[in-house]
């Protein structure tokens, strides 16, 4: 994806405004936020203020934020790459190719999956590049093991297998890149660029230089710099849009919510992705408050609810809170959320004795995770069970497992879509 903040930064410099910038958003840790800390979010750290008063140095965003050029960091760290292929000639060839990378990585080779595992266990590597077709342990088996034992290791598949099914299965194992073995000089150069980019990518989630910035910060950046754009924020299946014209909040939309209500709702999402789309100056203004006032109100409301105000059931506007959107899902009969390692459900709605369903949910998800490993197709995304009396669906979102019952009149597709929506809503 490259540097996602690049688009943002270009707009500050008066450069071309490409339609899309993308990034990952994270809320500040609300658990550690005390009531009254709202102002902390709004006193935009160096990031926002530097941009507003133009005091930032003319460095690429990444260098400015992290205090040092990419060049100097390269000098400090020597990345380690492990190449795995049963063909010694290929290993020699790729060793030579990757030696030419600008970061001059340390390259080790293994001629089998078992040898690769042994090397990975012996010392930390930054990147694993593996073939698929290998005797005894093939690339898919190796990747399945690597995914479990070394979840932070970046992985590239370099293969002569041209098959969409294998490409799909490889990506379902969480691989970063799937490359057909290069046959021309240009392809080799492209491969080198991609591998170099993978090696340089920051370890932490989020975008380079502004990781852990909240949506509040992003909105402040846009408003302080008087820019015009549409922020498109996605959180699983939930999509929200915020219109900003000349640094003023104009409108917001999230599902059926509009205006301020939608804005408050979007800000309640803990994490997600954002894109900056071109401005829509003709958009009608529905938000009359200044962005500062609205952000302050919203964050204060969150602080209060964090401090125990949730029970009062009011929104930022002081109006009665809307019903929980999960309960509003069409045909929902019951809903259970289970956290890993906790025997009791973290949330159980519309069900009196969830023990039976809890046991079945855990056992079934575990059963089909095991099967997914054996078939090398990744973890189950959703499981839908249909019956004459009612349907049931299971899903997993990071460390939380979900089970929901649905009215029997719904079809399998709707049930699947709804459990995804319910799990995303619950996570938000």
């Amino acid at each position: 994806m490259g540097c996602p903040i690049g688009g943002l930064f270009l707009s500050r410099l008066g450069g071309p405004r490409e339609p899309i910038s993308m990034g990952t958003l994270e809320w500040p840790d609300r658990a550690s936020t005390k009531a009254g800390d709202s102002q902390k979010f709004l006193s935009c750290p160096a990031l926002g203020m530097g941009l507003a008063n133009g005091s930032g140095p003319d460095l690429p965003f990444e260098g400015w934020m992290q205090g040092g050029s990419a060049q100097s960091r390269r000098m400090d760290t020597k990345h380690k790459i492990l190449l795995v292929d049963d063909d010694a000639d290929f290993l020699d060839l790729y060793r030579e190719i990757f030696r030419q990378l600008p970061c001059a990585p340390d390259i080790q080779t293994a001629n089998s999956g078992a040898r690769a595992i042994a090397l990975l266990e012996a010392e930390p590597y930054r990147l694993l590049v593996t073939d698929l077709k290998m005797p005894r342990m093939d690339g898919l088996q190796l990747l399945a093991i690597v995914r479990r034992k070394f979840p932070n290791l970046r992985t590239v598949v370099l293969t002569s297998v041209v098959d969409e099914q294998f490409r799909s299965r490889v990506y379902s194992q969480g691989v970063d890149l799937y490359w057909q073995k290069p046959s021309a000089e240009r392809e080799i150069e492209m491969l080198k660029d991609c591998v170099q980019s993978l090696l340089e990518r920051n370890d932490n989630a989020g975008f380079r230089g502004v990781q852990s910035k909240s949506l509040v910060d992003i909105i402040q950046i846009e408003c302080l710099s008087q820019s015009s754009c549409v922020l498109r924020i996605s959180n699983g299946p939930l999509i929200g849009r915020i219109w900003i014209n000349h640094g003023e909040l104009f409108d917001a939309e999230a599902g059926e919510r509009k205006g301020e209500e939608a804005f408050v709702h979007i800000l309640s999402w803990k994490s997600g992705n954002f894109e900056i789309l071109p401005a829509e100056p003709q958009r009608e203004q529905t938000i009359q408050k200044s962005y500062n006032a609205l952000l302050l109100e919203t964050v204060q409301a969150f602080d209060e609810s964090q401090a125990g105000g949730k029970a009062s059931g009011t929104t930022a506007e002081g109006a009665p809170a809307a019903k929980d959107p999960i309960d509003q899902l069409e045909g929902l009969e019951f809903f259970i959320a289970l956290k890993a390692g906790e025997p009791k459900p973290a949330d159980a709605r519309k069900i009196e004795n969830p023990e039976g369903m809890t046991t079945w949910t855990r056992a079934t998800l575990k059963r089909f995770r095991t099967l997914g490993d054996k078939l090398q197709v990744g973890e189950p995304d959703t499981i839908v069970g249909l019956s004459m009396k009612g349907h049931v669906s299971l899903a997993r979102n990071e460390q939380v497992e979900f089970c929901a019952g649905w009215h029997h009149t719904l079809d399998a597709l709707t049930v699947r879509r709804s459990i995804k929506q319910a799990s995303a809503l619950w996570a938000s």
Partner: protein
Amino acid sequence: MGLLSLFSKPEPTLVRLPSGSFTVDRSGRVVVSTLPSSFPEHLTDEISRHVREAFLDAKEAGMNLSELVIHYPGLKIVARELRGGALIFLVPISLASNTSFIKRL
């Protein structure tokens, strides 16, 4: 050439997930199958075992499921309950899959 081939190493192969269906009875024996013979028998057995056990567990939890649909990123399994056995469809999902076909199933 035939003599030389005696000394050549066998080409490593990857197991391709088939598109097709098979029926198992309540004891797990495959009754009918449209899966290619190249698909390992032990994987067919694994799939049918997990599916039948999931149906049984559901029954014990008070749900008489008639159909289970398991969505993996690379495969969709549709299983219909058949008096303790199951009719199981396998649909590999590739990035270029015809999604409308997969959705119809």
